Every structure is written in structure tokens, then in C-alpha cells.
């Protein structure tokens, strides 16, 4: 999953990005409203974490300009905790609102919930045949036994599972599994797919030549 974090305080931005990357998200960053809007409209993120008070133009203004173009889930992070501000944020198009200071675990759980919901899922556990994917604990089990996957492998499985039944192009996978700082080598994706097949069964991921991959 690929996230965009837009926050003007450099120290906080670094901390958030580090925390999210350790949770195996691909994370892009922006420090002001303009840069954030540009990035948010240029790529498909699975979730945007947006600070309210930003230079150039603020988070609420960014939302106003983003919403007509993109339906990306947005979680607003801000020090403004008054009810009118919350209402304003949610009405402007934010899907969730967290006030600073917040608990790190809560932030992660809310991001997971937003991503889950935007994929149309209601629960955090996805069952596909003999494979069970717990998006909460980020673990996968095969025939009830936990399978060890690398971070990238898990991200791949999670993404395909959340878009189950849809063919996901390689480009899309690149976009959502790697952030802008990653070196994208085509082969890397194939290696991950092949490793997943070894661990979860050869039929788990189906290849559509020329189109992409899917989980049926």
C-alpha cells in the first residue's frame, strides 16, 4: 500500500514516515499544500494523511481542490480539536479526523480501516480458499498455519486480495507497492509473485499475460 503524508513540521514528518515505512507501507511526503496537492493528483495513493495547518494553502483548501478529482481516502491530522473544525474537515471530504497528540497505534489502525473500507471490505480478515489474510496483524495463514512472508510479499498479497477479482496491472502494482524513492526494477515484481506462489500455492495468484495479475 502506498501512502502520502502531507505535514509541514519536518521532524514530525520524518517520524510519521519512518513509522509507516516500518509498517511496510510505501510512503511519499510533501511539506506544503501545493506540493501535497500535486502529488495527490499525480498518483494513486491508498490513503493520504493530511495535516490541517500547511503553508501555501491549508489542508482544508487542499481537500476542496482534491475531492473533485480523486476519491482517495483522507485522514486529517491536526492540532485543531474543536468540534467546528472537525465538522469542517469531515464535510470538506476527509474520511477520518485525528487530533494531535494521537496514539501511534490508533493512527495505524485507522489507516488500515480506511484502506479496508475503500476496497469494499467490512472485516479485517480476508479468507481466500485455504488462505487467510489478517490485515490487522498483517499475517497470512495457509491451512490455519501461519506463513512467513516478507514485507513486500505481504503487501503484494494484501493488495491483490483487497482487489480480489480485478486484474491489477504491473504498473498499478508498482505504484502501490513502491514509493517514489524506490528503484523500480521490473524483475523485482516477478520475483515477489513467484515467491508468494511457492508459499501459498501456485494457483493463488493468477497471471493474465499482457494485463497483470489477480486473485480469483
Amino acid at each position, binding site marked *: 500500500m502506498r501512502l502520502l503524508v502531507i505535514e509541514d513540521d519536518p*521532524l*514530525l514528518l520524518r*517520524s510519521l514516515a519512518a513509522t509507516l515505512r*516500518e509498517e511496510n507501507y510505501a510512503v511519499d511526503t510533501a511539506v506544503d499544500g501545493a506540493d501535497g496537492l500535486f502529488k495527490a493528483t499525480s498518483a494513486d495513493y491508498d490513503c493520504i494523511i493530511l495535516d490541517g*495547518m*500547511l503553508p501555501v494553502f491549508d489542508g482544508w483548501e487542499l481537500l476542496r481542490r482534491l475531492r473533485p478529482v480523486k476519491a482517495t481516502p483522507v485522514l486529517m491530522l491536526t*492540532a485543531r480539536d474543536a468540534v467546528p473544525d472537525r465538522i469542517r474537515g469531515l464535510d470538506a471530504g476527509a474520511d477520518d479526523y485525528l487530533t*494531535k497528540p494521537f496514539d*501511534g497505534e490508533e493512527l495505524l489502525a485507522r489507516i488500515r480501516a480506511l484502506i479496508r473500507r475503500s476496497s469494499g471490505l467490512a472485516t479485517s480478515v480476508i479468507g481466500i480458499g485455504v488462505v487467510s489474510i489478517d490485515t490487522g496483524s498483517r499475517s497470512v495463514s495457509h491451512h490455519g498455519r501461519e506463513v512467513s512472508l516478507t514485507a513486500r510479499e505481504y503487501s503484494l498479497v494484501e493488495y491483490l486480495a483487497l482487489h480480489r477479482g480485478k486484474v491489477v496491472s504491473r504498473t498499478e502494482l508498482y505504484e502501490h507497492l513502491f514509493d517514489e524513492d524506490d528503484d523500480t526494477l521490473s524483475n523485482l515484481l516477478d520475483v515477489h509473485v513467484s515467491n508468494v506462489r511457492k508459499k501459498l500455492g501456485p494457483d493463488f495468484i493468477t497471471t493474465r499475460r499482457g494485463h497483470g495479475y489477480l486473485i480469483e
Partner: protein
Amino acid sequence: MNRVFHSVRWRLQIWHALILMGVIVALCMLAFRLAADDRRERIDRELESFERAFMKSFWEMPSRKTQDDHPPTNPSIRDRFMALNDATQFPLEMRDLFDPEAAESTYLAYWDGEGQALFRSANAPDSLQIPSLPESDSDPKARMRGDFRELVHGGPRGFRGVVGRDISADRAALRRLGWQITGSGVLLWFLGLLGGWWLAGRAIKPIAAISQTASRIAGGNVSERIDIANTADELGQLSHTLNDTFERLESAISRQREFTADASHELRTPLTIVLSEISRGLKREREPAEYREILTNCSHAASRMRSLVEGLLVLARQDGDPRNRPRESIDLAAATSETLEMLKPLATRHGITLRSDLQPSFCSADPQAIPIAAANLITNAIVHQASGGSVTVRVFASEGQAVLEVADTGPGIAPEHLPRLFDRFYRIDPARGSDGGHTGLGLAIVRAIAENHQGSITVESSVGAGSTFRFSVPSGESALRA
């Protein structure tokens, strides 16, 4: 009872009642006295004219001997009196003199100089005795004898006469009049009380309204104001004064709320950093280098919070009790010079040249506050411009003020920011985080210090031309005199 004594309305009413009662009682007594005097005078006049009429008739009566031109002698008078036994000789109104039963009518009696009774009307009371000799010959002397009002007059040769009447009926009438007057007085008093109660109520009503509004405002609804119907009268003035006070109360409360909100807002982001870093750090085993990085980040954030708290404390001290402010004679130049020394490393780091022109300028000031003001102004000048610029600091005395001037060659400040530049947490770019220890309180602290010393802080700036801040406090002599 307490309530009665504490209520203005009741006190008004009681005083009104007492005063009104005093006035009415005095009036009633006066009226009664006038009526009594008038009646008494009338009775006396009646007696007098009765007696004169009697005398007239007496002398006009025919008698045995008519001796003209001779003053009547005692014997002849006695004779005339003896001949008085026939009522028909007298006019109608005097006939009762001969009727022993006519006790309510006027009676007469005369005595000669030797004390012999010359005449005693039939209706004269038995108690009537010869009076003592009156002092003057002519003026009748009035006297009360029990129920009888009598006029005693003396004549030539010790002659005495008494004319009188039983006035118990008159007295009864007067008593009745007295009760009537009293009754009316009481009635008037009650009417007066009612009127007074109503009047007091009308006067008190606006006060009650003001008082209720004031309690509501004091109870929490600080934006309400007292309705002023008539601004010119005393209650209108009172309402105005109260409304002004409430205005100041409301703005003080909202300033305080704003301050608390701003302060907690400012602290949230560094707090979030600390929590986020610590939570991240504890999630898994890490290399020492990673832990060090996390701890360093926490330390930076904590430093930021400390700067903020310190700034807030300085401001709070400036806001505090005026009596606790120490004053010493300070040389502004010396304090500024020390501050410049302290800030040299910062200037070097930012690549800024410091220039100074410091002339001794004394002022009476808080020795801890002045260096803070100088430091804030100079630090701002250093950090708000690009490397290569300069900051010029001047201290001089001018027009009774000790002046500190800090000029920089930075980008300048747009005019729309100038009015609010010295507000707490005001930042030209509203989203700029408090990085590098910049808390947004620096100029607010300078302003508070200036105000506490009855001084001033001004700024001249235009975009592209740099800024000049001028901080001045009254200089030594006048400040000490003030």
C-alpha cells in the same frame, strides 16, 4: 426582619411612613388647634357682645327715677337690678337669663365694690362665686371654670361682672372634630403609604432589572449587556459603567481563552513527535544508532516545548502583579552589549554581521526583563534574514527615553502584518512550525516588557527594505520621578 432592614424599598417605605406620619400629625394638631382657638374666640366674642347687648337693654329700661346726666350711683344701680324680674322686658335672646332651667344659655352676674351681689341671672350655675378684682378696668378677662367659659370684667368702684356659658357641648363638638381630623389623617397616611410604595417600586424596578442582568452576566453569560432605556439619568450612567466593565471582563476572558487555546495548540505538535517517536522506537528491537536517532528527535521536540513553556512563563510574569516588579537604574547600552556578546555565535552561524553603536542611556527598569527584550529583538533580526546580511544595533537617549534600535537587512514585513506583529503566537506564515526554537512569543514578550515600563515598541518596515524595531523606556530621572 433582616430582610426588611436590608431592603432599600422597605427602608424607603419605613422612612416615608415615619416622615409622613410626622407631617400628618403636625398638620392635624395644627388644624385642631386652629379650630379650637377659633371656636374659643368666637365664644368669647359672643359672650362679650351678649353682655354689651344686655347692658344696653338694661340701661334703656325705664326706671322709677330718671336722673339724667348723673352718673348712676350704687343704690340706683342696685335699684335697677332689683327691678329686673321680668323677662319680657328683654329681647328674646336674653330671656333665658330668667329661666333657671336654661343651663346651656349664657348667664350673667354682677357684684358691687363691696362684694354684694347686684344681679344673678336665674340660669347662672350655683358654683359661680364672686371673682377677684380684675387688674384692669376695661378689658374683660376670659377664664375657664370647669365646663364654663366666663368673661370677667371690672367696672368703676370695684364693680365686677361675669358673663359665661356652659361650653361642654362645644367641647364635645370639638372632640368630635378632633376625631374626624385624626381619622382623616390616618386615612391620608395610608393613602400616602400606598402611593409611596408604588413610587418606590417604580424607582426600584430598573435597579432590579440591572441587578438581574448583572448576575446573569457574572454567572457566565459574559456577552450579555444591560438594556439602557434612558441614558442620561443616574441609572443610565450606572448601566453604562457596568456595561463597560462587562465589556472589559468579556475581552479579558476571551483573551485568556485564546491564550490557553494557542498555548495548548502550540504544544501539540512537539508532543506528537515525542509520542510518535517513542511509540515507533518501542515497537521492535533496534540498533543503538536507531535508538540514538529516536532519542535525539525526542530531545529536539522536548527542547521546543521547553522554549515554549519558558516563553509563556516570561509572558505570565510580565502579566502578573505590578507590585512585584523590581526596578533598578540600568544602562541600556551595557545590557545590550552583553546580549550582543551572547548572540555573536548565533550571528556567525547564520552568516550575519553584527554592528553596534551604543551610547550610555540610563533607565529605571527590571534588570531581568531588559536583556530578554534586547535578545528577542536581536535574535529575530539575525534569524529572519538570509546569510550575508547585517544587523545594526543602536542605543541612545532621546527626549527623556532610553532607546534601543535594531535594524536588519532582511526581506521586510508587509504592512498587513504590522498591526498584529506583536500578538502572541502571531506568525507571518500561519503554518510555520516552531522550528529552531522560534516560539512566536518573542515580540509579544518585548511588547509586554515595554508596556510594563510605560515604554513603547514600534516597527518600521517595508517589503524588500528590511525592518527597524525601536524599543524605548523612560530614562532614569523622569522614570524615578514618575
